[in-house]
C-alpha cells in the first residue's frame, strides 16, 4: 500500500538533488534545470497531499506551479541569452561584476 510518506520522501530526494545541482554546478543552464527539478519535487508533494488529504487545492496549486515554472524558464533563458550575448560565457563564477 502506498502511503503519503512514499511520495513525500521521493519528493524530498528530488528536492535535495535539485538543491545540490544549484549549489554544485557552474553552468547556468544546468542551474536552471536543477530549479526545474525543485519545482517538480514540490509538485509531487502537492499532488500527493491533494490525493491523501482528499482536497483539490493541491492539484490546483500544481497547475499554478507549472505556470509559474514556465514563466520562470522563459525569463531565465531570456536572461541567459542576453548574458551570453554580452559576456560570451554561461559560467556563474565568471559573472561576478555588476558593471559592464
Amino acid at each position, binding site marked *: 500500500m*502506498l502511503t503519503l*510518506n*512514499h*511520495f*513525500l*520522501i*521521493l519528493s*524530498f*530526494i*528530488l528536492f*535535495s*538533488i*535539485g*538543491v*545540490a545541482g544549484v*549549489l*554544485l*554546478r*557552474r*553552468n547556468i*543552464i*544546468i542551474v*536552471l*534545470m*536543477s530549479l*526545474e*527539478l525543485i519545482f*517538480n519535487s514540490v*509538485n*509531487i508533494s502537492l*499532488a500527493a497531499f*491533494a*490525493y491523501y*488529504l*482528499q*482536497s*483539490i*487545492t493541491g*492539484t*490546483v496549486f*500544481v*497547475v*499554478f506551479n*507549472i*505556470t*509559474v*515554472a*514556465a*514563466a520562470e*524558464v*522563459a*525569463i531565465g*533563458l*531570456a*536572461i541567459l*541569452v*542576453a548574458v*551570453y*550575448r*554580452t559576456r560570451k560565457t554561461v559560467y556563474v563564477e565568471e559573472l561576478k561584476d555588476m558593471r559592464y
Partner: protein
Amino acid sequence: MEQIFFYIFAIVAVASAIAVISVRNPVHSAMYLIVCFLQVAAIFILLRSPFLAAVQVFIYVGAVMVLFLFAVMVLDIGKESFGEHMHSQAIPAGITVLGLLAVVGWLISKGKITVPLGNYTEEVLTKNTEVVGKSLYTQFIFPFEVVSLLLLIALVGAIVLVMKEKGKGAGSTRS
C-alpha cells in the same frame, strides 16, 4: 502492484535526476531531465491526477525542455571540463545537501497528518479534470488571473530581454 510501479518510477526519477546534475554535457543533462519529468508524470497518474500528468508532459516535456535544448543549441555551449565540474564549493555543498536530507527525512518519518480531510471522494479525484476546472474558475479565480498576468508579463519580458536594440542592429551588440 501499485507499489512496484511506484518504485520503478521513483528509482528511475532519482537516477535520472542525479544524472542531470552530474553529466558534463548540457544536452545529455536535458535528456535526463526529460526522463525525470516523464517519471514525475507517471507518478501523477499513480496519484489519480491524469490531468496533471498530461499537463506535466505537455508543458514541461513538450515546451520547457524544447526551450532548454533550443537555448543550448543556439548558444553552442560545449562540455564542461573536469576542473569546472568539481570546484571548491563542492564539499560544503554536499555536506549541506546531506544534512538537509537527513533533517527533512527525520521530519517526514516523525510527521503525522493532523489537518482535517477534505470532502472529495476518490472517484471525484479520479475524474478530477472537471473538478480542477470548476475550482480554478470559482474558488481560485483571483490567483488564476494573477498567474495568467504573470505569464503575460514573462512573455513580454522575455521578448524585451532578447530583443536587439533598434538602430544599433546586430553588429554592435556582438562587439
